């Protein structure tokens, strides 16, 4: 037993001229007795009318000159220099969009990474191993958890 959703999928593909003849026959038989699917059909028709009415679009003037800038020669050197230019133009777009200049961002990132590395290094030098720590680190994890609870550990020591 086919559900309304299946028939609505068929309506969608019928609208695109992609339905087979068997599907069409079943679809029209169903449509004759289903208000929901008729409503979907009408809504789809209204929607498609609006979509077709909003196709036109203005092309930016500079697009043509950008296409004309594609190098005539297809040698590797010409192509790579063109691609570099494209990359630069993308960088320019980014710098135009960002309110803060890129060098400042790079400086802040470098300083923060440096500060973080310095704090790590200072932690390592101030670390003084104790007997307890060394003892724990030589034991496999399972043994520490299973057989050496703190109380037992105290006893053993």
């Amino acid at each position, binding site marked *: 037993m086919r559900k309304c959703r299946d028939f609505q999928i068929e309506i969608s593909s019928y609208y695109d001229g992609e339905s087979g003849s068997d599907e069409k026959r079943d679809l029209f038989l169903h449509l004759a007795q289903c208000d929901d699917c008729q409503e979907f059909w009408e809504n789809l028709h209204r929607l498609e009318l609006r979509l077709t009415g909003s196709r036109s679009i203005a092309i930016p003037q500079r697009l043509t000159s950008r296409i004309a800038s594609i190098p005539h020669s297809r040698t590797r050197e010409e192509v790579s220099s063109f691609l570099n230019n*494209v990359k630069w133009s993308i960088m320019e777009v980014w710098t135009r969009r960002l309110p803060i200049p890129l060098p400042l961002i790079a400086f802040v990132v470098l300083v923060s990474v440096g500060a973080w590395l310095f704090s790590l290094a200072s932690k390592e030098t101030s670390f003084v191993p104790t007997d307890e720590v060394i003892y724990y680190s030589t034991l496999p994890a399972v043994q520490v958890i299973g057989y050496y609870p703190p109380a037992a550990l105290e006893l053993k020591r």
Partner: protein
Amino acid sequence: MKVLLINSMPEDTLSDTILVKQVCDGDRKAFGRLYEKYKEPLFRFCLRLLKNSEQAEDTVQETFFRVWTKASAIDNPQSFRAWLFSVARFHALNNLRDRKEAQEISENDLIELDTPHEIVVRAEQTAGIMGLIELLNPQHRELILLRSFEEFSYAEISMITGLSLSSVKVQLFNARKVLTQLHSKHQGEKPT
């Protein structure tokens, strides 16, 4: 035999086939003709998919750059139009991924969460039906653009997107279902 085959092809496809062959031979005029023929649908597709004019320009330039440099790699010049859109789609999706769109609204979100009417109404008031299309997730958006605007067949959409034919059929229905719901909601909001 070859002549017969060419004569049986539609005029549009025939000219594409010839133009692509001329571009392969380095004919800049043929390249210009291909650009003139496809600049509008391609830019429209990129703009509506990316929702950003500068990125759409970048994508169109990148796509035509591929046409010029890789024309000889086109397996089937008869389906040049579909190949062109698949290249544009690839670059556009890379751009979208870079931007990491945070405001994707999935079909389920729209149906189950009952999107506030204000969002739908405002979207249509500012940009008409295109405002509603922009509320769709990128996959639904591209299917609507390829089918309803560019009039690609399901087989061509399948080639462009890499989806199976049955997925194209079902996903296109899903996209339309969401869009008709949004559209009807907005129509219901309008004062009579």
